[in-house]
């Protein structure tokens, strides 16, 4: 099978579906979404909780509800074809996509534009080196979430969660609602990496203790987890001897971070960013390889799916334009770099043509800050944009739109920083 598409999307989660819709809205006529799971929607299908969609759909939705909205956008469009149960094995620089599925076998597909929307995966036990035995009962929070919310099984009845990222917090509440006892959530950082609203409604509501600056120093049990040893950590995150205590449990859930899923991007030889773990993109979400775009968690891990959708709309639009030969030129290539207290900023550079263009920046700060804060974007010593903030946390991505008028006149690199006001 060999066919030419305007746009091929690798991944049918919220990013892929939204980008497909955006591509169609911007004139692409033949769009293909490749999804490896049994249905479109991605990881949202297992996130049965609510809290999604307030920004993008102006309505509070559950994860499956949000996925349904994304799917409803494209499911009846003649321009969009969706193949589920389909795994992409390789994407080549000539924009050939090699994929397989049980019905159609080996497929070689060609796109005028490709959008990478593979999402992210969870960090594992090995990556953080927890000493102890290797019994059953240790799962990443996401794997357990799938079993609980989609397959109908629980991982155990007495649970310790390592990591206070949002998935860990959400699972703490979920397991409580399933009648399980969540013994504690341990967080190695001195602050939680989850949203405050989730600490309130997932932990406080259920009287689940959150131990900040604590980690697991041993997992016990031969065949199945029988308990863990926790300890306080110092400011270098090393366990402090003498602070150990035991927690009785049959299950350990790990919520220790997400990593963009970039095996295909690496295979393509895309330029990657060391801190985001995703491909370097411009404001149109085009990667270092012309015609290959990327959006969503594959570029950088978001905390809000709404922002994933925003980013996917951008990628879909420009992928369609590129496929139709309507992409404007780019006379100026300006780097976007991070200054004080900003850890990452996407896009990492702007490729600007003659037309005015809206530019949205997504950033994460290095540490929790509060007070009179000022987020500023400087270029050539001049302030392009600034915004006052009261609170900034590494767990909450900040999005700002740069004014079109200012963009048109930019001529040197942009520096994004967050400073404490005087």
């Amino acid at each position, binding site marked *: 099978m060999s066919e030419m598409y305007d746009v091929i999307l690798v991944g049918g989660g919220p990013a892929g579906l939204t980008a497909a819709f955006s591509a169609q809205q911007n004139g692409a006529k033949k769009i293909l979404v490749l999804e490896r799971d*049994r*249905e479109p929607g991605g990881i949202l*299908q297992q996130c*049965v*909780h*609510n*809290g999604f969609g*307030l920004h993008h759909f102006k309505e*509070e939705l*559950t*994860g*499956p*509800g949000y*996925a*349904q909205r994304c799917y409803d956008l494209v499911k009846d469009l003649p321009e969009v074809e969706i193949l589920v149960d389909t795994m992409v094995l390789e994407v080549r620089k000539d924009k050939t996509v090699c994929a397989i599925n049980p019905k159609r076998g080996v497929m070689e597909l060609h796109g005028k534009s490709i959008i990478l929307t593979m999402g992210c995966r969870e960090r594992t036990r090995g990556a953080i080196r927890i000493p102890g035995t290797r019994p059953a009962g240790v799962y990443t929070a996401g794997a357990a979430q799938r079993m*609980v*919310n*989609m*397959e*109908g099984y629980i991982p155990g009845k007495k649970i310790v969660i390592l990591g206070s990222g949002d998935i860990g917090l959400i699972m703490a509440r979920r397991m*409580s*609602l*399933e*009648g399980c006892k969540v013994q504690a959530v341990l967080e190695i950082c001195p602050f939680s990496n989850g*949203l*405050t*609203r989730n*600490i*309130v*409604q997932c932990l406080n*509501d259920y009287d689940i203790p959150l131990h900040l600056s604590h980690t697991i120093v041993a997992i016990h049990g031969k065949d199945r987890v029988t308990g863990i040893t926790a300890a306080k950590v110092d400011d270098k995150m090393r366990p402090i001897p003498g602070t150990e205590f035991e927690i009785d449990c049959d299950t350990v859930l790990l919520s220790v971070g997400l990593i963009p899923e970039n095996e295909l991007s690496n295979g393509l030889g895309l330029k990657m960013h060391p801190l985001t773990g995703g491909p370097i993109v411009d404001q149109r979400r085009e990667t270092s390889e012309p015609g290959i775009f990327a959006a969503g968690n594959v570029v950088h891990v978001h*905390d*809000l799916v709404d922002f994933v959708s925003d980013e996917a709309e951008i990628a879909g639009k420009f992928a369609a334009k590129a496929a139709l030969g309507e992409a404007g030129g780019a006379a100026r290539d300006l780097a976007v770099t991070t200054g004080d207290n900003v850890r990452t900023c996407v896009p990492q550079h702007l490729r600007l043509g003659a037309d005015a263009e809206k530019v949205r920046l997504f950033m994460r700060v290095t540490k929790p800050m509060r007070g009179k804060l000022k987020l500023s974007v400087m270029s050539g010593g001049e302030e392009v944009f600034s915004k006052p903030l009261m*609170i900034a946390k590494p767990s*909450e991505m900040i999005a700002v739109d740069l004014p079109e008028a200012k963009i048109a006149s930019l001529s040197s690199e942009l520096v994004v920083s967050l400073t404490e006001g005087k």
Partner: protein
Amino acid sequence: MATETKVLNCINCPLSCELTATVEDGAVTNVTGNFCPRGAQYAKEELTAPTRMLTSTVRVEGGRLPLLPVVSAKKLPKGRVVDCAEALRSVSVKAPVHVGDVIAADILGLGVDIVASRDMETA
């Protein structure tokens, strides 16, 4: 007259605004720190009659997947959320189901329906 100040985080949206509420004789008289009006409303409710949304799953017979995600159509009294979740554990529905279909009407007599979060086709 007893006046006290309570600090709490709004849970309406991911901004999680830190609210400072003044409570006089059990009534919330002033709220600061909120970016939007929902924050003030939240503080008043949370300090007098707290409520929560409930999301869970129920079994589906004959569906493409074994479970159907469900959500409360409105907020439930916070103290009854766990009871409602327990009640849902014995609920089972038949496919097909459409998003918004009522799965458990007026759960535990609280005046709130539990509805489907998504479509569920037959297998």
